[in-house]
């Protein structure tokens, strides 16, 4: 791990990201949605969190996936791997950039949608852990995509499952199998947000946070193992 290298990769990717409008305009998607939701006057927790969960997939996972896929597409990943920068440096440089973009987008979305959580600290912790999970998801996705085009297709099923998954809960009365969606990190953060609005117990808070943490650990564990395997050749 070398801070200068991480910074170099961060700056390079920041410039590449800001000049690649196909990817960087995705940031606007959750913001526009948040704005429209605010104007149409919805105030359920489900509606508040739709732009946020959308930002996690459409911005966090998608940008991370694109940053790596584009390196493959243009054949730059190989020389990057041959440089003194280690795999950890490369992933950290990219993840830090994606994390910053995510933090900005999520904050703006929360502001635009007009959500005011009762406890900022708890919600911030959950959002931070979710960001870590979605960055891992994007990195994992990049293993299977070779171009930006493939990345934008691959992100669609992920968006369906993770961003819109919590809506399946509303149908769980008719189809009990959909109850499984409750375990998604995107559903857990809504459960958490609902419980902090009232008087809450420690388990009500800890259970969702630990669940999101477990999701993050699992996804990064798989990502790192698969990368080690793939990057050898």
């Amino acid at each position, binding site marked *: 791990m070398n801070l200068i290298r991480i910074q170099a990769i961060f700056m*390079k990717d920041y410039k590449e990201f800001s000049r690649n409008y196909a990817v960087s305009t995705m940031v606007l998607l959750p913001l526009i949605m948040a704005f429209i939701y605010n104007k149409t006057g919805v105030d359920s927790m489900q509606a508040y969190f739709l732009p946020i969960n959308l930002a996690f997939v459409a911005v966090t996972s998608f940008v991370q996936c694109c940053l790596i896929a584009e390196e493959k597409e*243009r054949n730059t990943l190989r020389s990057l791997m041959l440089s003194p*920068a280690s795999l950890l440096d490369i992933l950290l440089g990219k993840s830090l950039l994606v994390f910053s973009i995510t933090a900005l987008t999520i904050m703006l979305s929360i502001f635009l949608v007009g959500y005011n959580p009762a406890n900022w600290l708890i919600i911030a912790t959950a959002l931070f852990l979710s960001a870590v999970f979605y960055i891992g998801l994007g990195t994992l996705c990049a293993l299977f995509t070779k171009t930006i085009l493939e990345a934008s297709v691959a992100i669609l099923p992920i968006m369906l499952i993770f961003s819109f998954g919590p809506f399946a809960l509303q149908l769980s009365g008719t189809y009990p199998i959909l109850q499984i969606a409750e375990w998604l990190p995107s559903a857990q953060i809504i459960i958490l947000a609902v419980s902090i609005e009232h008087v809450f117990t420690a388990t009500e808070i800890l259970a969702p946070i630990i669940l999101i943490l477990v999701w993050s650990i699992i996804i990064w564990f798989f990502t790192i193992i698969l990368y080690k395997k793939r990057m050898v050749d």
Partner: protein
Amino acid sequence: MNSKLAITIDSFTVEGNIISPSIEMYFEKGSISGIYSDVAKLNFLASQFALNPLIHTELRNNGIYNRLTVNEYINFLKGLYSPSITNGDLLTLLEMNDKKKARLHNLSNAEKQRLRLIHCLMNDKPMQVIEEPFQNLDEHAKTIVINILGALKKLQKTVIILSNNMEDILTASDSVFRLDASGLQVVDVKEEETAALEKNEITPFRVEKIPTKRNERIILFNPPEIDYIESVEGQVSVYVSGEPYPTSLTLNELEQKLTPFGFFRCHRSYIVNLQKVREITTWTRNSYSLSLHASKAVVPLSKNKLVELKRIIGI
């Protein structure tokens, strides 16, 4: 540590056929060596070099970040490699001072190709393998690349150029090798010069090159490169590393030209390079053939020529 670096490359086989045998190479520090071969062998060689932690391999198809400017790209690479070279020096060496602020996708191919060599200037590995540094470059760009290679040489790096263009290798490198199925051969540039000098004493103003024509291009071969010459239905072909190159000279003219180089008219329609003959095979009392080292080619030998051949070789 001595001044020579040894590299061993395993043999390259496809479905049991040896394409290139296992080779051992020695390279001097602060020198430029060129390896000439065909694309398949060069690709294999480059992939083998890439496995060695002491070697930096710069492949022809390595990409660059199109959306960065030249200056940003250099700064990024500096962050990766932390080299001692300054941006100014680098830009001067690349002759790109006026392109500092240009986005990489606006550069010409020749300029992009030069930018790739920055990797070689920045990393601190002792050996730099560069694939086709001169491909598709004009004369001016070639001079710049040669200057960059010179700078690498000054840094006491061992530079290896892989190319399938002999001319490029000859202009840029100190020592030249050719990789073919029989292994890595030194193409001794100096020896060739002295041989030409000696020749000049006998017949001044004559250079002994064998002109051949292939795909509308005239290729000149040094006599020692040639394996054998064959005449089929009046068409004379020169065989080099198993490849035929048609020539307009007749067998008799060639025989005259090549006899001083150890060539021998072994058959009415064949001339063979005796240096490359490995084996004389007797089939029956009246039929013989010569097997060559390099290619697996077999050349017929007439019965009446056998006596003369025995006399030349001294059996």
